[in-house]
């Protein structure tokens, strides 16, 4: 399974993600510069965290118009996997691949912590290595992670079962319905504010995030 990690000017979690897929999981992984226009060799595209284009205007607003993003949209339309983490989640909502938006945290603070997150369902390719309702611990690090959608959109997201991750207990950033991560209707595009790649190497104090990547590999192995 071949992974590609998009690198925008200002991305800063790109190498962490590549370390997980390339080193820990031994999968072919390459970096995708934001000006690239051919990503047809990839099975999974990951848009990492960071501050793409300095987060100017709005988080993810300018990254959305970089040359590679049109290809990422096509990649998603073909049913292939796209994962946006943190700033990557913001980019995916700006690009219209996921509904809603991420706005300023309720209490205005940049929050850098490890938080309990509930896995809502385990029948998605992203969460099949977890059990439904399982509480895992993942790092968060964001100033603009409060999920917002209008009432109707929120109802649709919930009704379709698109919420895969929810903050458990305290809702640190004020997200609607405690939403931490959602997928698109088809399920092949996931955006999440917590950082699974920062919870994959036991040296860093937790491996709850690794299962997300492992689950994806099992899925593909099952199809093959």
């Amino acid at each position, binding site marked *: 399974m071949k992974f590609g990690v998009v690198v925008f000017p200002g991305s800063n979690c790109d190498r962490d993600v590549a370390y997980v897929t390339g080193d820990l999981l031994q999968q072919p992984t390459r970096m995708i510069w934001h000006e690239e226009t051919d990503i047809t060799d990839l099975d999974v595209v990951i848009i990492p965290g960071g501050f793409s284009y300095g987060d100017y*205007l*709005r988080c993810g*607003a300018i990254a959305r*118009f970089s040359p590679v993003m049109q290809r990422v949209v096509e990649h998603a339309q073909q049913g292939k996997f796209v994962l946006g983490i943190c700033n990557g989640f913001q980019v995916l*909502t*700006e690009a219209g691949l996921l509904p*809603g*938006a991420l*706005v*300023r*945290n*309720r*209490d*205005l603070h940049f929050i850098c912590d490890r938080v309990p997150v509930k896995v809502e369902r385990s029948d998605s390719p992203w969460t099949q290595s977890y059990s439904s309702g399982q509480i895992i611990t993942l790092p968060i690090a964001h100033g603009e992670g*409060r999920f*917002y*959608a*209008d009432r109707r959109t929120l109802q649709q997201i919930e009704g379709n079962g698109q919420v895969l991750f929810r903050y458990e207990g305290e809702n640190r950033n*004020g997200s609607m319905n405690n939403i931490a991560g959602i997928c698109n209707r088809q399920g092949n595009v996931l955006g999440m504010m917590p950082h699974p790649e920062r919870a994959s190497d036991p040296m860093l104090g937790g491996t709850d995030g690794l299962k997300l990547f492992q689950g994806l590999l099992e899925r593909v192995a099952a199809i093959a």
Partner: protein
Amino acid sequence: MLRKYRATIYVTLRPSVLDPAGTAVQSGLSHLGYDDVEQVRIGKYIEVTLIADDEKTAQEQVDRICDRVLANPVIENYRFDLKEVSVEMGAST
């Protein structure tokens, strides 16, 4: 003939979106004794200068720019004023 226009654009959070920064400023004002301030909402002000054939074209262009880039319709509203600026004035600013 090509003309030069300046758009002054206001991007504001939709009323349904909580504005914690505005609330913080309101609380600061209240500490200063401005208790009669009911609400503060913070938005963005953007100036765009562009060349167009006529005002209608400029209007349409700015509207598209706002809708596609400057505002995110999921969370923000926008409005703008458009003025023709003379080339002399444009050169001096």
